[in-house]
């Protein structure tokens, strides 16, 4: 089980950051290698994520569900799926939130969650997986900041 605990500041107002984080298409756009390939009637998103473990690329298809608490500017995202070859399953849950940041106009974003990888990949990626997730989280923060700065969407 890989834990995610990310805290980062975005130089945009909380409502602007929340506007991105509460829009599934925008959020997926901030995840490196991710895209939305479909949506079911209950609102579950069919997503595809290409993850690079070392030089090896693995494509995951995952069903993602987003729950939002507009008033508190908090949300839960849960995703589960398997890779395109079928040997590995992943399950992830994360809670995120936006609060006014340290600067006058900035925001602070927090993400806490877990990623579980089981099956054939688990031995292949060994300890490096947590570093891959960490790197993706960092890229997510950077893309989120860029998107907010550019004016959503």
């Amino acid at each position, binding site marked *: 089980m890989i834990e995610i605990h990310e805290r980062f500041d975005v130089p945009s107002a909380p409502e602007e950051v929340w506007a991105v984080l509460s829009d599934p298409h925008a959020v997926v756009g901030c995840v490196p290698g991710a895209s939305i390939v479909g949506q079911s009637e209950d609102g579950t998103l069919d997503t595809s994520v290409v993850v690079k473990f*070392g*030089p090896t690329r693995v*494509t995951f298809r995952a069903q993602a569900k987003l729950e939002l608490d507009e008033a508190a500017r908090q949300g839960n995202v849960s995703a589960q799926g398997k890779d395109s*070859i079928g*040997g590995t399953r992943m399950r992830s849950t994360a809670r995120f939130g936006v609060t006014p940041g340290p600067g006058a106009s900035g925001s602070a974003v927090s993400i806490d969650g877990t990623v579980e990888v089981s099956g*054939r990949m688990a*031995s292949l990626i*060994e*300890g490096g997986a947590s570093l891959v997730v960490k790197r993706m989280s960092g890229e997510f923060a950077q893309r989120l900041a860029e998107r907010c700065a550019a004016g959503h969407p």
Partner: protein
Amino acid sequence: MKVSDALASAFLKEGVTTVFGLMGNGNMYWWHALDQHPDVTIHETRHEGTALTMAEGWARATGEVGVCAVTQGPGLTQLATSLTVASRAKVPMVVFAGETALSDHDSVQKYNQQKFVDATEAGFVPIWKASEAEDAVRTAFYRARVESRPIVLNAPMDVQAEEYTGEIDEYEPSSTLLPGYQRILPDPDRLRDAVTLITESKRPVIVAGQGAQKAGAGDAIVKLADRVGALLATTLPMKGWLGDHEYHVGVSGLYATKTAIELFAEADVVIGVGASLNHYTTEHGYIFPNAKYVQIDLQPSIVMGNGKRADHYLRGDALLTVEAIEQQLADGGVTSNGFRTAEVRGMLAEYDPDPRDFEIDAGTVDPRRAASILDDALPSSVGVIHGTGHCSGITAFFMKKPRDLTWAINTFGCIGQAVPTAIGAAVARPGQAMAVVDGDAGTLMHASELDTAARLGVKLLIAVFNDEALGAEYQKFVSKKMDARASAIPTPDLGAVARAFGCRGQLCTTLDEVKAGVDEFMAGDGPMLLDIRVSRSVVSVPYSRLWFGEDV
């Protein structure tokens, strides 16, 4: 004539010329009888386990049945790891093992030897009575060849001491029972289906394993690859095989180069030849995300490392099957450039296995540069055996020269096997220089065999990549931000240790000293150890991927 003499006579009739062993009262009379024969040389070692491993190295280098001799009880149990390694490596061997007298129930060395042998995955042939002695030897050699694994011939001391009344001159060796290897062709329908898939392929890759070399399929594989524009790759144990081809991309698996992995991602058909395509070779299938598989092997069926069977499994001899595929493609006028483009050629020519910069610790060298120096300074006629451990992930990437013999010792994933394997292989190739590259822990595990190397006078270079640590564990600790000191063990000057044993030896803390050491080895005779102090700061490419998630 005693049974022990009859057993020795039967070993002679089996064609045995070379034995590795450690004497004890369970094998000494058999040993004495065999040693009287001028055509037999028995090499004494300092540990039973290393005797077994030397015999394994000798067997692999010669293609003959390797023979090892140990005494009963504790003599046999010293084989625990090395015998398991040889079983997993499927090397045909016969181990002569004494056993405490069947009538002696109180001996301190009494032991259930069959249970032990079963656990090592080797075969077991007991000698229960004197009259069975010759049949037992024949059965042991027969099974070693047919089952392609070590067989322990269990000889109780009281049975060995009995009189033998059989006609030893009439012994018929196991070779008379063997029909010989039969080269079989796959079902014609399956063959046609595979040819259809290969015909449609735009980006084929051929992965050759040990079965391909065994069948002598090298030239046929190159011919097929050239016809369809395939990349050539091997499994790790076959590292370097067919390596002088310009579209050879090296090993498939964790030890693949970054360029190879990027090209493999484009592959639409993988043709495995004499390779099980297990999870090491295919990274559980993830190294070939877009490929269908043709697999040629002799097993009845194989589940590959991705948990599936090949799209077209062809059960047959590697040489005949590859030739048949190539012939059908030729008959159909099929030729393709496949991967053979200027762009791919450029990628392969310009490739740097590891362009990263590391700060090198004081008093040590960059192990990558040391490996390159070894590779350049050792001619291609010098066989190179790679050990197991963190350093092997560096030497495997930086020692790229195609050689008459390249072995990567990784069976059972244990350290300590490489040096005794290399001594055995060097004995099998008299007059030819040999080199082994291993870590400090792996080398020190059986440092007493430096005595055997010196005594035998083999021209063997033992290049120790000494990071004064259990290198693999050290790097894992670092990746997890734990205190890595728990894995660090200081070593003495191993060059001085080697000299004390009668080898040549040198401590190397600069790259110039490494080069000078290799030159000195080549110029002289007998074994030589280079204690190359390497910087722990340099993390191998495989470990950088596995433990640090790096895209290298």
